[in-house]
C-alpha cells in the first residue's frame, strides 16, 4: 500500500584508517540510484556480491544513513525518519529471530512495540501462523526449529503488522536447494495473500526472474537495468546484464556489424546473418554505423549442424547430459561456447554430442543476436 521513490540516492562508507599512515578509505557502495517503485509492486534487486543491494535495502529501511539523494515513501520524504516510524518490515538473511523468546512472542513482538491490544495480538499472530503453517511451533524457541521453519517465523514477524513495505534481504540463501525452491513458491503464494509493496534482494538470477514484477540489475553500486524479467532477458541493456541474466550465461563472440541502407548484418568469423527487421529499424533509427561489435547469443539459441553456409566449428570439451537437453562446452577459435542441444528422437541422433573432442558445427540466426558496442552497451538502446 505504498510507493517508494529513490531519487539520486548515493551511499558512501567512510572508514578512517587505523594508523596515521593508512589512507582514509571511501567506498562508494551505491551511486546515483533512481527508481520508482509502484504500489504493490514486487521489485527484486539483483547483482553480484558487493554491488550494493543490501545497502540500498537498508537505506530504504532507515538502517543506513543516506549520503545524498532523496527517499520518498508514499510521497513523504523519509531521509531523516527513524526505521520504526517508516511502517516497513524486513526479513533478514540470518533471520535475526530473538533467541530468548518463543515463536509466538517473536511474531507478537512488533505488535507489542506498537501497543496493540492483547486480544488483537493473539488473533493476528494466529492468522500469520496459519498463513505460514507454523501453528504447531508457536511455543518453541527458535533454537528448536529447522532453517526453513525459522525462515517462516521471520516472515511471520514481518507480515504480522501489515506493513506498507516488506523488505527481504536474501531470505532464502541459507536454505538448501530443495527448500529454497519450495519457499520461493511460498513467497509467490504469500504475495497474493498480503497486499504489500515488496523489495527483495538476491544474488540469484533465477529467484529474481521468477519472483519479480520488475528486476533491478546492479553492479558496483550502479543500476545496470531496471526492467521486467522478460524484458531484461530479451533486451539486456549491456553485456553485464546479458551475461548475468539467464542460465547458462549468454555466449559472446567478437564480430562486425555490417550495414547496407537500413539493413544490418552481423558477421562472426565467416558466418554472416541478417538481423530481423525490428532490430534493423531500431539501429537505423539511431543511425548506428558499421563497427566492431560483440555479438551475444544465448546457449539455447545456437543451432548445431544445420548445414548453413560458413558455419562456425568447435570441439566438444565437456558435455553434460541434463535429461531433456545436453549442455555442450565447446572450444571454438579461442572462445568457450556453451550450446544447449535438445534431446529429441533416438539415442543415435544425439549420441555424437556426448563424445569428447568431437567436432561440431554450429550457427545462429539474426533473431538470436544481441549486438553490443566496444564499451559493452547494447546498440539497440
Amino acid at each position: 500500500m505504498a510507493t517508494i521513490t529513490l531519487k539520486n540516492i548515493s551511499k558512501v562508507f567512510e572508514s578512517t584508517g587505523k594508523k596515521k599512515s593508512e589512507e582514509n578509505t571511501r567506498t562508494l557502495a551505491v551511486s546515483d540510484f533512481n527508481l520508482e517503485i509502484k504500489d504493490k509492486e514486487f521489485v527484486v534487486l539483483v547483482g553480484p556480491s558487493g554491488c550494493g543491494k543490501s545497502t540500498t535495502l537498508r537505506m530504504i529501511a532507515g538502517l543506513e544513513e543516506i549520503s545524498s539523494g532523496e527517499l520518498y515513501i508514499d510521497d513523504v520524504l523519509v531521509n531523516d525518519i527513524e526505521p520504526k516510524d517508516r511502517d516497513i518490515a524486513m526479513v533478514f538473511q540470518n533471520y535475526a529471530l530473538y533467541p530468548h523468546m518463543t515463536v509466538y512472542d517473536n511474531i507478537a513482538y512488533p505488535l507489542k512495540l506498537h501497543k496493540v491490544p492483547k486480544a488483537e495480538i493473539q488473533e493476528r499472530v494466529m492468522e500469520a501462523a496459519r498463513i505460514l503453517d507454523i501453528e504447531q511451533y508457536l511455543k518453541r524457541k527458535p533454537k528448536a526449529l529447522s532453517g526453513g521453519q525459522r525462515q517462516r517465523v521471520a516472515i511471520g514477524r514481518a507480515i504480522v503488522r501489515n506493513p506498507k513495505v516488506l523488505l527481504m534481504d536474501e531470505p532464502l540463501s541459507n536454505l538448501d536447494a530443495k527448500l529454497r525452491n519450495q519457499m520461493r513458491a511460498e513467497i509467490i503464494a504469500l504475495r497474493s495473500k498480503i497486499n504489500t509493496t515488496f523489495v527483495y534482494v538476491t544474488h540469484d538470477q533465477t529467484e529474481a526472474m521468477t519472483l519479480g514484477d520488475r528486476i533491478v540489475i546492479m553492479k558496483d553500486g550502479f543500476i545496470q537495468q531496471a526492467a521486467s524479467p522478460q524484458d531484461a532477458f530479451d533486451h539486456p541493456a549491456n553485456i553485464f546484464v546479458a551475461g548475468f541474466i539467464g542460465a547458462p550465461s549468454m555466449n559472446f563472440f567478437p564480430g562486425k556489424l555490417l550495414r547496407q541502407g537500413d539493413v544490418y548484418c552481423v558477421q562472426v568469423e565467416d558466418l554472416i546473418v541478417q538481423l530481423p527487421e525490428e532490430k534493423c529499424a531500431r539501429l537505423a533509427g539511431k543511425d548506428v554505423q558499421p563497427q566492431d561489435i560483440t555479438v551475444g547469443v544465448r546457449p539455447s539459441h545456437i543451432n548445431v549442424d544445420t548445414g548453413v553456409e560458413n558455419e562456425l566449428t568447435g570441439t566438444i570439451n565437456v558435455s553434460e547430459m541434463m535429461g531433456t537437453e545436453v549442455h555442450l562446452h565447446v572450444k571454438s577459435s579461442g572462445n568457450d561456447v556453451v550450446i544447449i542441444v535438445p534431446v529429441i528422437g533416438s539415442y543415435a541422433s544425439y549420441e555424437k554430442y556426448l563424445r569428447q573432442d568431437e567436432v561440431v558445427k554450429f550457427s545462429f540466426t539474426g533473431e538470436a543476436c544481441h549486438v553490443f558496442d566496444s564499451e559493452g552497451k547494447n546498440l539497440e538502446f
Partner: protein
Amino acid sequence: MVRRQSKLSKVLLSIVLILFGIYAAFPIIWMLICSFKQNDYIFYWPPKIIDESFSFNTYIKVLTDPVKLRFFLNSYIVSGVVVVLTLIIGIMAAYAFSRYNFKFKKPINSLIVGVQAIPQIVLLIPYMGIIVAMKLFNTYWALILTYLVMTLPYCILMMTGYFNTLSKELDDSVRIDGGSRFRALWGVLVPISTPALVSVGLYTFMTAWNEYLFALVLTQTTNMRTIPIGINLLITEHNYDWSMMMSMSVLGSLPILILFLFFQKYFISGMSSGAIKE
C-alpha cells in the same frame, strides 16, 4: 586411533586430584572448624575436629552485636550498589563500543585496558586526595566510586566481546519492529547475555565484597567499615580473637558461596559462551 586410559593412570590421576583438592580446601575446612571452638582450644595439640568447646557461641555473638552487623550491612550496600552500577554503566558502554563508531574509540579502549594494568596501590594516595577533595571521605560513595574503577573495565571489555558475538541484525530487527536502540539493548541483547552478565556480576560482587586496602584508607569510623576491615579490627594489641575472626569469615564468605551455587550453571556457560554462536 583411540587410546584407552589405563586403570593405573586413572587411579594415579585421581589421587593427585584428591590431594590437590584437600590442599585447596584445607584453609576453608580449618576456618569452619575453628569457628566452632573457643579461642583457647584452637592451638591444642593434637588438633581435634570437634572438641568439648564446640558451640555456636561466636556466631551468636557476631549476629547479635550491632557493631558487627553494621559491617555486614555496609558490605552489602557497597557491593550491591557497585554491582548494579557496574552492570548498568558497563552494559551501555559496551553497547557503544560494540555498535557505534565514534572518534577516539581506539584510544579510549586502550585506556580502559590500561587502567586494569595499573597496580591499585599506586592509585591509593591520589584517590585519597580526590575523595577528600570531593568531601566523600568516610562515606559509601568513597568506596563505591573507587570500586567502580576496579570493576568497570572488566565489565566493559567482557560485555563488548559478548555483544560483538551477537548479530547486529538483532538490533536492526528491533528498530524495524518499532523499538529504539535502547529497547534493542535492554529488551533483546541484555536478556540474551545472561550468562556473561552473571559471571561479570559475580566477579564484580567478589571484588567489592573482598576489597580491603581502599576500604581501610577511605573510611575512618567503625560504623562505616566493611567486613574485611571488621575482621581485622578483631586483632588488637593484646588479643587475637581467632574463633570470632573465623566465624565472621565464614559469615563473610557465605554470600559469595550462595551466589556461586545459585548461578553456577550460568557461570560455567558464561565462561564458555562466545565459543559457539547461537
